[in-house]
């Protein structure tokens, strides 16, 4: 991808981020605790600490020139 195209992608991500932050802070994305059954499932977690994922990331870190931007803990929570 050329640098111009990269800038377009970054700008689009920035706009998406801004719109998302505005929406989230305005409270337009409210999921009530009793609606979290699916979100709390392990398949909907972003950073499930699995053996295979750790091994895969270890492999990719050693074979590619880039790193970072991976998943962090977070996702649906069944707690009230």
């Amino acid at each position: 991808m050329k640098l111009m195209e990269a800038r377009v992608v970054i700008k689009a991500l920035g706009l998406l981020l801004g719109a998302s932050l505005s929406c989230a802070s305005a409270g337009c994305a409210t999921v009530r605790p009793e609606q979290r059954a699916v979100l709390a499932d392990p398949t909907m977690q972003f950073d499930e600490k699995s053996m295979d994922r750790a091994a895969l990331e270890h492999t990719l870190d050693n074979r590619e020139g880039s790193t970072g931007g991976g998943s962090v803990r977070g996702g649906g929570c069944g707690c009230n």
Partner: protein
Amino acid sequence: MPRRPRARHCLGALLGLSVVLGAAPARAQVASLDLGSALFVEPSKRSGLTVVNPSATLSVKPSDWLTVQGGYEADIVSGASESVKGGKLSNVDIVTSATHFADTRHAMTGGFTVTRASTHLTGSYTYGTEHDYRSNAFAVSAGTDFLQKNTQIELSYGRGFDKVCTTAYVASDAPSSRLALDNSEGCFKDEKKRASRDINLDNFQVGWTQTWTPVFATQLVLSAALQHGFLANPYRSVVIASAGDQALENHPENRARGALGLRGKYYVKNLQTAFSAGARLYRDTWDIFGQTYELDAERYMLPWLRVLVRARYYTQTKALFWSDDYTGGEPATGPRGQYWSGDRELSPLSSYLIGARALATRQGRPGQRVLGLFLSLSGSISFDMLKTNLRDFTLGGRAPDDTLALLWSLGLRGEF
């Protein structure tokens, strides 16, 4: 190998502690033990790289708000790699320049997590050692959720103090006269022919997870890293003159890296499947621009069996000073005159990955443990295949044959 008995003692202590805790008649989960092993193979006639990666992690919850964790892992590496990198014009004999090696890296980790109603704080320390490398890393992270738990923010910072063994050149020696290591003998032992050089690492990360609907969530992660010190491979020489002159790989001593990743998860009720899509953009001060695109899908085939399939595409541009061949008369003040590299990770490349994982979980019933010991027990098996396309990397003009990688992993997790 004086450290192996110590590593075995650590592992034995972990297992012993887990058995004691598992035998305790606790009603709530007080500990979990993760055991795993991964096998990485490059089916190449020339390099034949094989890595076995066993690991064990024990987490203990002495109270509701505190989790203490300890772990051990090893990388047992064997194979062959090119000790001299030359390009299309260099006429390097890659058969004789490929050197066989075997090494084992041991890493021990200890840490804690403090959890409150809607916040958590985690700290950890990791020590890693191998014949030619030492690493000390501290990491802290803190997270909280708000807006009725629909929004989660996590901040983390890691600091690494590493040391790498090289030949004993001094700063005033011209980079073109520095020699590569031919083995790790004498490293970290006051040997006059060896030197120890620092690598300082700073990693920052912020993550924002947002739930939008009862079946849709996103995560945005921004990472930044600073690296300073000896960032080359101490074993690799690069042909830098048409007469065949070689010198130790010479990389800049500073590198700043940034990445932005965006992922979404969506659960399709009709298919009873969770789909995930993600994109990541990466940029660094060595002028590498990388893009990653990922897709995966996971569903319950049986109430106790989950199957995940995944696919990934990655592409990157080359580093500013990358060249497959440095013998073409680059200006001494230009990027390829000041620095030279034989690292394929700095060349323009793309890669494809496909993989799958099956995970089986057995939950104990109230008052009844699995196998009389576990509150829950799960096991996983996975396989991934990675194919790399090196667009501008040759070994003496020949395309390398070690561009296919196979990865298997097995995992076992028990909660007590």
